[in-house]
């Protein structure tokens, strides 16, 4: 498979067999794997329900994550208290796993929340502007350095930042600037790139002549490719990279080699730009199926376990549909209030202007 390197870290094959890797070992327990299975399962269902809600006319749009669950949940396992995650806009499984209420995610795509999320101690707001979050993340990581939260002897006081972006964003100017700043300041940040092979309709092979992870070396920090559909490998690699960040060893680039099984968003049609053979090939590398196969092999789950998961997913579906009915619009005051801790003069002026404008409307 093109762009896939011989060095790609894999610990669980597509048919569910555990394999060894000279440098990386999965240190988690079976309970971790069961938790990951549940997170992936429910994340997938949430995604499917949200697509349906878009088709019902309840959401303006939705970016499906089908197929990328392992990349997100493996990474989520490596996040601990004090760490900060800057997502793009497709990290639904990870958002749920890190405790973001589903209503916030839905409100974002229903257009009711104006991008204001309740503070989550680990997971920031989605960013729709491609790649912009990488700059925010590097800045935040530099802030951790300034605050003395990196590289302390007492390991428990250290924190790191993980930022998500896609293969398409890696072609973006902002993102490359973020790489440069991260390297220059040795910022405690992990660039977690979900290479899902397609930037809307543009294949990765057109954007990069070399595997993406190899680019990191040019910026001056290590890059590593991991099987993004292998939740064990993703967790192992993410833990290693986050440890480096917290220790003060600087940035890491992780290329999670995966595949977007669905559309870029509900507004496009992938059958127009890519081949079915390709989708079929990736269907055989499904992240959930391989984990299920492995857990069955070691007798950690049975049919009853999966049935219970499916029932939980059904229940989540009901909650998803119900919760969207409870969403209410944010007010413009809330939007202004959320920009700075203390309002600036310019912002106050803008607020007044907007109020005048809003008052110029009358009831029909």
């Amino acid at each position: 498979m093109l762009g896939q390197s011989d060095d790609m870290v894999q610990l669980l094959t597509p048919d569910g067999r555990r394999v060894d890797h000279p440098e990386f070992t999965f240190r988690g327990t079976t309970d971790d794997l069961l938790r990951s299975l549940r997170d992936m399962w429910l994340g997938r269902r949430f995604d499917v329900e949200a697509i349906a809600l878009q088709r019902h006319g309840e959401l303006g749009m939705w970016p499906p994550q089908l197929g990328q669950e392992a990349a997100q949940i493996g990474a989520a396992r490596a996040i601990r208290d004090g760490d900060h995650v800057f997502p793009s806009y497709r990290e639904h499984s990870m958002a749920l796993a890190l405790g973001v209420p589903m209503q916030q995610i839905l409100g974002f795509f229903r257009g009711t929340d104006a991008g204001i999320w309740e503070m989550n101690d680990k997971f920031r707001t989605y960013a729709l502007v491609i790649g912009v979050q990488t700059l925010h993340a590097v800045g935040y990581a530099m802030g951790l350095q300034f605050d003395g939260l990196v590289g302390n002897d007492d390991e428990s006081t250290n924190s790191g930042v993980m930022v998500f972006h896609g293969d398409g964003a890696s072609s973006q100017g902002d993102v490359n600037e973020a790489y440069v700043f991260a390297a220059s300041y040795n910022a405690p940040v992990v660039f977690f790139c979900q290479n899902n092979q397609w930037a809307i309709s543009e294949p990765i092979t057109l954007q990069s002549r070399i595997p993406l992870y190899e680019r990191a070396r040019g910026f001056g920090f290590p890059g590593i490719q991991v099987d993004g559909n292998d939740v064990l490998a993703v967790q192992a690699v993410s833990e290693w990279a986050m440890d480096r960040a917290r220790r003060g060893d600087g940035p890491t680039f992780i290329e999670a080699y995966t595949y977007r099984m669905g559309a870029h968003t509900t507004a496009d049609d992938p059958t127009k730009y890519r081949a079915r053979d390709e989708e079929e090939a990736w269907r055989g590398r499904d992240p959930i199926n391989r984990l299920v196969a492995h857990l069955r092999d070691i007798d950690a789950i049975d049919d009853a376990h999966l049935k219970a998961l499916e029932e939980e997913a059904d229940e989540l579906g009901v909650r998803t549909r119900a919760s969207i009915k409870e969403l209410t619009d944010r007010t413009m005051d809330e939007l202004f209030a959320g920009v700075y801790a203390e309002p600036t003069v310019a912002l106050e002026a803008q607020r007044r202007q907007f109020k005048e404008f809003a008052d110029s409307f009358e009831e029909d």
Partner: protein
Amino acid sequence: MLQTFLLPDVGEGLTEAEIVAWRVAEGDVIKVNDVLVEIETAKSIVELPSPYAGTVKSLLVSEGTEIEVGTPIVEIDDGSDDEAPEPVLVGYGASEAPSRRRRRSRQTPDRSASEAMASAYEQRAPGRSTEEVHPAEPVRAEAVGDPLPTAGEAPSESSLVLVEDNDPRAKPPVRKYAADLGVDLSTVVGTGPDGTITRRDVEAALAFQRLEQEPRQGRVMNDQATFGGEQRAYTATGSHGFGGAAGGPSGFGDFGAGFDPFEGRAERRVPIKGVRKVTAENMVRSVNTHVHVTEWVTVDVTGTMEFVETLKQRREFTGLRISPLLVYAKAICLALSRNPELNSEWDEERQEIVYYRDVNLGIAAATPRGLMVPNIKNAGRLSLLQLSQAINQLVQVAKDGKLQPADYSGGTFTITNVGVFGIDAGTPIINGNESAIFCMGSIQRRPWVVGEGADERVEPRWVTTLAVAFDHRIIDGEQGSRFLHDVASILAEPALALLF
């Protein structure tokens, strides 16, 4: 209470869509997210799942109608007591809040907001068809970049099955569909997600049942089921090709008893658009440029029919639909290798004749979206098994109405099959810029003279008429005739393929 589903904007900023096919009927009991309807927008064909569970009360828009976003399309009784209506869909819909408007407006907008938005984003204005935005005219697509990943590493079938379940799994509309057709779901193999049974699977099972039950004698042996099924362009849906079907005049589809497509008037006017328009333009261009000549030959293809039966018994062909079309396609590829003039194109602009090394074999298909000619890339280099797999896949995709531009661009030679409809032969029109087209007629039991001298006698044999139309600018009678003769020889005696 009665819930009304409004046509949502499934893209970003789309203003209208066409109702392509209803997947439910009035009276159907449905669950949340059962597929209600297939719609086509400027961007794609999309299935709309139901927001409500309950009973389908009425379908408010008929198939083929283009409607604006926000139009009520279906009413569903959710079985609850009446209460206040559900508020607010995103951006449209029945908002309960009073609408507000600007008191001092300096300019009176002369366009509606949606039109203004549409033009701002260079979306199409209401009323233009999909094809005007995305012309269906084939372009020769060059593959860009490196080859796509190939299959492999797929886990075994068993590890993909998550929950073992003996009950056949199918959604309620499919269950009803199967019940209506008298198909026992426990006999159907599901090919949908997680092995669920789809409408197509039910149809395939039905076609198989009929094939089993039908007496062999006198049967029209062609690919009736190949491109039949869900097509609406022909009324012969589900029946064995010609005649017999219950539908009305061609093109109106099956709307059920009591539906009057004329709405009481003496004529019915349909705008020329979409696939019909593109088809018409292509036909006119073909007739005005190619110098068409058609030749026929009637031949005993009993050898081919026996060969088809042999193939069906072969283990490697298990699960594949084997039909005479497969042998025809192989014979044509072999004959083209010996008569390359028929695999060519006239380049008027450069005053050159382009001969193609590879045969991209087009197969004319009546698809849900109209006449399309998807082609099998590099068919000449495929083994019989690979060719069979390619045809099966093409048929499936065409039947699903999911052909991609790459599927129907770059063709070099076309097969059309009027035998499907019980027709003996025809004078086909050459497809696109190609130089020849082959027409399959029906294969029927006919009296045929066999043997010689004292042994001469009349026997019932499988007999058919083959036709080829070619462009006389490039292809002389000699070459056209040699080609047709070669095809006929192989079909009469498939072993002769060894000579090619």
